[in-house]
């Protein structure tokens, strides 16, 4: 682990932490525009987080330490994921600590903790949210893994940097399998990030909420961390998607940290487009009933498997 | 048997004769219904065995086979039959022996077994360099016949006699076909037979004490139950 490598690693992490709420704000703003509402300001998420940090935390009397440490843990898990995902540079020191499969495991870890914390107080909403969250995760994870397998079949590796290297620096080829995988990945990301059509981040409607139901009991700095972690999660998923399907402009190697700074505008541009697409999807679709989720995610799974089959059939 | 009898020395002819006697006695035991006659037949078989062992000892000049012959004489002609007679008197079990299969069928099976044994022994006999090699087939046959007898008998004592007569056949194979095993082994075998017999004697009393009979049908309790 060279000092420059470490520095680059740190740089990517800091950029990810800073950019994440921006992406969330951008998506919300786009959605506002598309739906003909007065759009919330771009920097609203930063202000929300800052405001929450200043407040006094209110915690239920029967909360256990799990409840209080959970925000930090999921924040830590998401930060680590942000360090691993090759959003700006490929050959970062931490990248080898977890390949794509381990990364899915990392997300699952965060999910388990958030579900545990939701059930910790013992309220009806928390439990309901937890059970729904696990339900969605249970359906989404196989599909996500299938997507990753499809991508890794092309490069013969489950390590994200290797995948990116292979895809970005080979002669340009059209992989039909990646088209299937891309659609599937988008669907999974929507589900995992509590977006429409599986969940609606903007409401607290009792019967439909999933993510919000789990964090009802949180306030102040804890809630701030959770919000930030959610934004990071969205950022991570977007970066995985970009790395898999639009792997251009990512700096190669970790020695030159200036290259990382150079890669940042490219990333921001790609994220802007991606965020807009996300808002577009959310505008044109409607929230489905929770028991429609299997159909939605089943389709994603099917597409991913199809992509894999296509890949096996046509060769890469 | 592929070779002619006339070309053999007298002692070898004698052994062949005794072998035939042994086989005949085995058949007789298979057919015998009365337990006392069975013991007498067993004693006669022992005598034939002792004689043949002595003849082999004489012919091949192996002194340890005299020991073996003497041991057989004492053990199988005198001691064991006496023990069995004593047991029968003490236990008062003079009844006739009932077989599980009727005698003619048993005899038929016996004939088949003898043919099979001879057939089995032919290729081996031809390899041997002892003149009395053909006796191996007879020994095999008498072992098989004794086995059959053990299967078909219902009472404990005839079964044991079958067991002992099987040992006779084995001894015969050891002494006649191979001119005797090493002495250590023979002593060990004799000791085992004797001890086994004593244990059996003790056993008979206990079985009788527990079941009031020596009929083996009382000894059929330990089995898999037919219902689960």
């Amino acid at each position: 682990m060279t000092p420059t490598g470490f520095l680059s690693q740190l740089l990517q992490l800091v950029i990810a932490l800073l950019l994440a709420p921006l992406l969330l704000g951008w998506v919300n703003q786009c959605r506002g525009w598309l739906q003909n509402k007065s759009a919330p300001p771009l920097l609203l998420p930063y202000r929300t987080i800052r405001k929450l940090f200043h407040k006094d935390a209110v915690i239920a009397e029967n909360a256990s330490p799990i409840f209080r440490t959970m925000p930090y843990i999921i924040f830590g898990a998401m930060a680590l994921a942000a360090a691993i995902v090759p959003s700006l540079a490929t050959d970062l020191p931490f990248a080898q600590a977890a390949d794509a499969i381990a990364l899915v495991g990392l997300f699952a870890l965060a999910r388990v903790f958030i579900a545990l914390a939701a059930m910790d107080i013992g309220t009806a909403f928390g439990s309901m949210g937890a059970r729904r969250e696990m339900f969605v995760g249970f359906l989404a994870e196989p599909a996500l893994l299938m997507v990753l397998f499809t991508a890794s079949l092309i490069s013969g590796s489950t390590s994200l940097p290797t995948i990116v290297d292979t895809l970005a620096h080979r002669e340009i080829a059209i992989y039909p399998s990646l088209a299937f995988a891309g659609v599937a990945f988008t669907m999974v990301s929507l589900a995992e990030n509590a977006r429409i059509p599986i969940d609606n981040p903007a409401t607290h409607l009792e019967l439909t909420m999933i993510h919000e139901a789990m964090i009802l009991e949180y306030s102040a700095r804890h809630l701030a961390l959770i919000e930030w972690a959610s934004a990071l999660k969205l950022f991570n998923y977007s970066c995985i998607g970009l790395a898999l399907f639009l792997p251009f402009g990512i700096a190669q190697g970790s020695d030159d940290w200036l290259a990382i700074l150079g890669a940042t505008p490219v990333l921001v541009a790609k994220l802007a487009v991606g965020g807009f697409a996300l808002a577009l999807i959310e505008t044109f679709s409607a929230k489905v009933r929770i028991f429609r989720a299997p159909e939605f995610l089943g389709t994603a799974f099917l597409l991913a498997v199809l992509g894999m089959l296509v890949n096996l059939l046509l060769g890469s | 048997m592929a070779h002619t009898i006339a070309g053999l020395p007298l002692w070898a002819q004698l052994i062949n004769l005794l072998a035939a006697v042994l086989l005949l006695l085995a058949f007789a035991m298979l057919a015998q219904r009365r337990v006392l006659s069975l013991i007498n037949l067993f004693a006669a078989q022992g005598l034939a065995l002792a004689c043949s062992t002595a003849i082999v000892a004489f012919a091949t000049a192996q002194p340890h086979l005299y020991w073996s012959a003497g041991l057989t004489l004492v053990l199988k002609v005198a001691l064991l039959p006496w023990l069995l007679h004593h047991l029968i008197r003490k236990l008062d079990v003079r009844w006739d022996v009932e077989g599980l299969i009727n005698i003619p069928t048993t005899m038929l099976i016996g004939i088949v077994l003898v043919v099979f044994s001879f057939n089995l022994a032919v290729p081996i006999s031809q390899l041997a360099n002892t003149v009395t090699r053909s006796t191996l087939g007879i020994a095999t046959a008498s072992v098989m016949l004794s086995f059959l007898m053990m299967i078909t008998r219902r009472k404990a004592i005839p079964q044991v006699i079958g067991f002992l007569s099987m040992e006779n056949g084995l001894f015969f194979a050891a002494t006649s076909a191979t001119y005797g095993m090493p002495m250590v082994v023979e002593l060990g075998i004799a000791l085992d037979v004797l001890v086994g017999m004593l244990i059996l004697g003790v056993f008979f009393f206990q079985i009788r004490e527990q079941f009031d009979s020596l009929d083996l049908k009382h000894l059929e309790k330990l089995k898999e139950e037919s219902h689960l």
Partner: protein
Amino acid sequence: MLIGSTLGGHGGSWLLLAPINPDRASYSPIIVLLVIFAVVALTIQVVHRQYHGRKRLGPAWDCGYPLQTARMQDTAEGFGQPIRQVFEAFFHVERVLPSPFDATPEYRMKVEDHFWRWLYLPVVRSTEAVARLIGLIQQGRISVYLTYSFFTLLALLFFIR
């Protein structure tokens, strides 16, 4: 050869769990653990320094629903309910639901998977049948046992002849 080589023996450091080589797939539990711990510790420090660590304890909010008893806790059955409902087609479910007017409401459910009925039960039954058949050989009579031995011998002798 008997025990097999350990994982991570392929060029990587002991930190790394790489079955084939780090370019193909890798996982380092120690780094993952340490980094998460570091970030958690750092975040706690920073948050508490930068802002404050004030907190108040109060009753659970629960969307303003005040009554809570231990009986309202989620059960394992409730927790698995969505998954069960989705996969209902794959199971054999018998459910008795109470109506709102029952004086003594009763809820009972029995979930059996089809594998149990169509795969395991036949296996169990056939195993039992085979066991019953094989049990017949152990039927207690010594002559029969001797016959087994006898025929084994004869068959083998016949076989080698």
